[in-house]
């Protein structure tokens, strides 16, 4: 009897939590489909116009494209460089390997926000201020420690013997990496790539500090600007938010497929 009652309480509490968590999200979905969207959740006067407006406005499309350049660019650099670095860390004996790995972990957890003032100054003096490529480089650099940490752990799980077999067959070390190690690492590479991509796609502060011309703004800044206008069309705002959030959601769902063995914590050493 008691156990049954406890169970019922658990269901009720969880349902309440879920409803409260869902309400702020419901606004985006409902308002984006509403002809006369307001700030509160309400039954929509169904229309697809908000989405059409968002997706046909060239400035909006450009902001998504800018975000794509930043995120794809950074993810590509991170994948290539962290794979190479992880290979050295995983396959060779090195003197200060442990210290190096721990400093990677240390850098992973430092709040990036704190270095942005000097980064701004560095960018101005390198001529990288208001430059999308500069943002790509910075995002890649700041994503690198975590990527190296993850990649090394993934690489450690690929047995050395496969690679050695390829060498016996006359393959060079580089060919061994390309043909043997990489294919076995694909889930890890995708995980790191998606993680980096999503981090860049959602980042607000870095482009906010390092960009000044509106035609270079990625979606995060564009949305903020849009939101700050005096007469906001809420329906369009919601539709823009939904379109902007969609890649993050899709990519998250995809990674779940690879990480299905269980969630691995920040350090990634349990993955």
């Amino acid at each position, binding site marked *: 009897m008691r156990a049954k009652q406890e169970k019922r309480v658990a*269901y009720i509490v*969880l*349902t309440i*939590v*879920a409803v409260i*968590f869902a*309400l*702020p*999200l*419901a*606004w*985006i979905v409902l*308002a984006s489909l509403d002809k006369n969207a307001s*700030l*509160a*959740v309400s039954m929509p006067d169904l229309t697809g116009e908000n989405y059409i407006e968002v997706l046909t406005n060239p400035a909006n499309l450009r902001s998504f494209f800018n975000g794509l350049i930043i995120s794809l660019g950074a993810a590509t*650099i991170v994948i290539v*460089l962290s794979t*190479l*670095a992880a290979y*050295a860390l995983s*396959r060779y004996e090195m003197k200060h390997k442990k210290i190096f790995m721990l400093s990677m*972990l*240390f850098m992973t*957890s*430092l*709040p*990036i*926000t*704190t*270095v*942005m*003032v*000097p980064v*701004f*100054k*560095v960018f101005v003096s390198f001529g990288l201020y208001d430059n999308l490529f500069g943002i790509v*480089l910075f995002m*890649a*650099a700041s994503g*690198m420690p975590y990527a190296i940490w993850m990649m090394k752990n993934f690489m450690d799980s690929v047995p050395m013997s496969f690679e050695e077999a390829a060498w016996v067959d006359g393959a060079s070390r580089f060919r061994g990496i390309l043909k043997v190690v990489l294919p076995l690492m694909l889930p890890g590479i995708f995980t790191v790539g998606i993680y980096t991509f999503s981090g860049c*796609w*959602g*980042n*607000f*502060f870095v482009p*906010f500090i390092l960009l000044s011309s509106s035609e270079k703004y990625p979606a*995060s800044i564009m*949305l*903020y600007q849009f*939101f700050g206008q005096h007469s906001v069309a809420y329906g369009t*705002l919601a539709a823009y*938010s939904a379109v902007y*959030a969609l890649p993050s*959601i899709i990519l*998250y769902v995809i990674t779940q497929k690879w990480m299905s063995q*269980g969630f691995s*914590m*920040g350090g990634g*050493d349990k993955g």
Partner: protein
Amino acid sequence: MRKKGSSLSKFGYLLPAIILMLLFFVWPIILTIYFSFTNLALTGSAAANFQFIGLDNYQKMLTDSSVKVSLITTVIFVIFSVVGQSVLGFVIAYLMKAKNKIFRRVVGAIVLAGWVMPETVAAICAYTFMTDKGTLNEILGFFGIGMVSWLFKYPLLSVVLANIWHGTAFSMMVYQSALDNVPEDVMESAKMDGANKLQTLFGVTIPIIKDTALTNTMLITLSTLGTFGMVYTMTGTTVQTLPIFMYMRAFKNYELGYGTAISMLVLLIGAVFSIFYVKIQGKEMEG
């Protein structure tokens, strides 16, 4: 270990990553330390010819009452966000154990959705929820409670609640996997000894997941400490946590030197937590 290729090549693999990090990550950290001892400005003569001014910025911080206010705001923001996320995340994970699979999936997906959202989108969701004509006030109105201007009257509370909503999923997942790893037989034997649910929770479960809870707390403290977009989108510069304060002094008041001294403060607090976190992880690496 078999060697192939020159011993130099191993550094060749590492070099590109290291150069990139040195240029765009380590160098700015070093500059942060350096600039915090200068009178660097955003514009004007002190932008090009800035000078070393020793501890002046730090002395200024000690007497600047807005630094104190900002520090207190940050501590409140971080503590309440972290405790809120951690406790709520644990409660959800704990209650979800052994419940209907579809129900778990739906609740989990809803909580996760708020976490997966980009920061700006999450901030807008939270803003529209709590604004004067927002959903929260509509609901309160339905129960006969008058409208409350949450974002103006209680801006700090608003951003804390928003941050809890946005971040709880992470703790939930961490605790879900920790709870899944609590050995079944330990729970069984506690039950056999006649322990009730609460006794088992506090006597058995919580001690076992204690380390996970600690690591989780470190991680969310670090990410909360650097929060900017969420706070800035929701309340502008009303809630002056240290990152917002740093941004204002550096880019609105053009005092880059003073701004970096403020970031040093955040960096130091962050470094303390990071070292603690690395120590825990380092121990696990050996084990």
